[in-house]
């Protein structure tokens, strides 16, 4: 069964550093997403991406965040200057044209120290 692959599984970074979280969506999917889950809290929508541009973003997704699909297979989330409160599990997901359910990756646990 096709999978969404996320790397790394764990990332520890110092406050103020830039991080890039990487995702390989399912190959024939068209819509791509990032969600995050702060420990003990709800899973929250960050951003959706379609046709090489952001479709929608939440209020969480401020100027410190950016997404990119650099080569037609990878989908990345960049945090320019990490803050302690960015520590969370970040999930990538993708869906096809007529799908009604996402396929999520297994997540990247980001710890900012």
């Amino acid at each position, binding site marked *: 069964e096709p999978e969404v692959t996320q790397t790394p599984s764990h990332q520890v970074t110092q406050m103020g550093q830039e991080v890039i979280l990487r995702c390989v969506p399912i190959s024939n999917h068209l*819509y791509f*997403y990032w*969600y995050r889950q702060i420990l003990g809290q*709800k*899973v*929250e*929508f960050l951003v*959706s991406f*379609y046709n090489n541009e952001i*479709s*929608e973003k939440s209020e969480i997704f401020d100027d410190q965040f950016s997404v990119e699909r650099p080569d037609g297979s990878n989908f990345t989330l960049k945090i320019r200057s990490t803050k302690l409160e960015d520590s969370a599990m970040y*999930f990538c997901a993708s*869906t096809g*044209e007529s799908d*009604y*359910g*996402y*396929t*999520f*990756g*297994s*997540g990247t646990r980001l710890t900012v120290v």
Partner: protein
Amino acid sequence: AQSVTQLDSHVSVSEGTPVLLRCNYSSSYSPSLFWYVQHPNKGLQLLLKYTSAATLVKGINGFEAEFKKSETSFHLTKPSAHMSDAAEYFCVVSDRFAGYNKLIFGAGTRLAVHP
């Protein structure tokens, strides 16, 4: 605006007994509804989905859910719990709009299964 309320933050059952995880939703449009499961330190796995077809939806691992529009509910059930069912369960709503859908998650219900 869409929202989801999971009525129990924790549910504890004995192995072999029925499971009921309750979910109510609010949506301005015809919703799509999902249940996802998250095992410890794992990703989110789709259990089942409702997309305006049959109101009783069967999913993986013996789970099913019934969409009740009059009650705005989408409760998850399983006739007989297994130890491996212990996990966090999320009820999720989506309004399909502009060709894509943003998922709104409930707060989650942690299911414990005792021998």
